[in-house]
């Protein structure tokens, strides 16, 4: 029998809430509300390989990405460059991914983050097992966890 280890939606939500409340949401918390995600926007992804294989991805609109960067750097959004956005979003997914990884048993290696404007879809060898749809400052924030599909025991 094959046992697939995956984080629960509640655990991922707790991780995201902790990251947000510590660095981003002291005054405006991230809410468990689904807001339609328009096309485009930013994606930040991090992978885990070894004892547990996964991709953790955070998708945000341009406005949310700028707000994340501005809040982390404590500077006006217009002063945040694309390089700053990539840096901030990379740290965001690093914290979410690292904490999700810490919940899972076994040894594995966390990658460096990958950030891009647009969708960073995992390879076809991974399937979505967890999808967290949130809203921050009126903007959608989506966090997904992809894992290898469970092996067919037959």
């Amino acid at each position: 029998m094959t046992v697939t280890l995956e984080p629960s939606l509640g655990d991922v939500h707790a991780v995201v809430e902790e990251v947000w409340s510590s660095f981003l949401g002291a005054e405006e918390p991230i809410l468990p509300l689904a807001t339609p995600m328009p096309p485009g926007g930013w994606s930040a992804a991090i992978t885990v390989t070894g004892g547990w294989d996964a991709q953790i991805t955070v998708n945000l609109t341009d406005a949310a990405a700028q707000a994340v960067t501005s809040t982390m750097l404590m500077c006006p959004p217009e002063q945040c460059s694309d390089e700053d956005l990539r840096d901030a979003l990379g740290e965001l997914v690093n914290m979410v991914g690292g904490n999700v990884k810490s919940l899972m048993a076994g040894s594995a290696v966390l990658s460096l983050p990958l950030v891009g404007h647009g969708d960073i879809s995992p390879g076809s060898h991974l399937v979505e097992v967890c999808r967290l749809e949130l809203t921050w400052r009126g903007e959608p924030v989506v966090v997904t966890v992809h894992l290898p599909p469970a092996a067919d025991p037959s």
Partner: protein
Amino acid sequence: MKILVVDDSRVMRQIVIRTLRQSGHGGHDVVEAENGREGLEAVQREAPDLVLSDWNMPEMSGIDFLTALRASGGTVPFGFVTSEGSPAMRAQAEAAGAAFLIAKPFTPESFDEALGAVLGAHP
């Protein structure tokens, strides 16, 4: 005193420096480096009293930085500031010679607790 902050993310280095202030440890000089290799060079050049290092970095990771530092005879107190705070990571950090591991996201209180034990009372 002088603190060396090592992280490939400029954003996180700024957050660490801000948190040093918020935790009452803002009176120290701060030097920055972007990866473990630059961190090694900075330790030799700046002779810091404490190193705060990320774990996962390009060029040279934090754990490799610490290992190389101790292998060369460096005894500067070293603490990790990293997104992975599992018991296994903490054990690996301690075995390599780290004084503490602060998990991201962190609070000024967690900074004060870790740094206070190494640096003593606030400057």
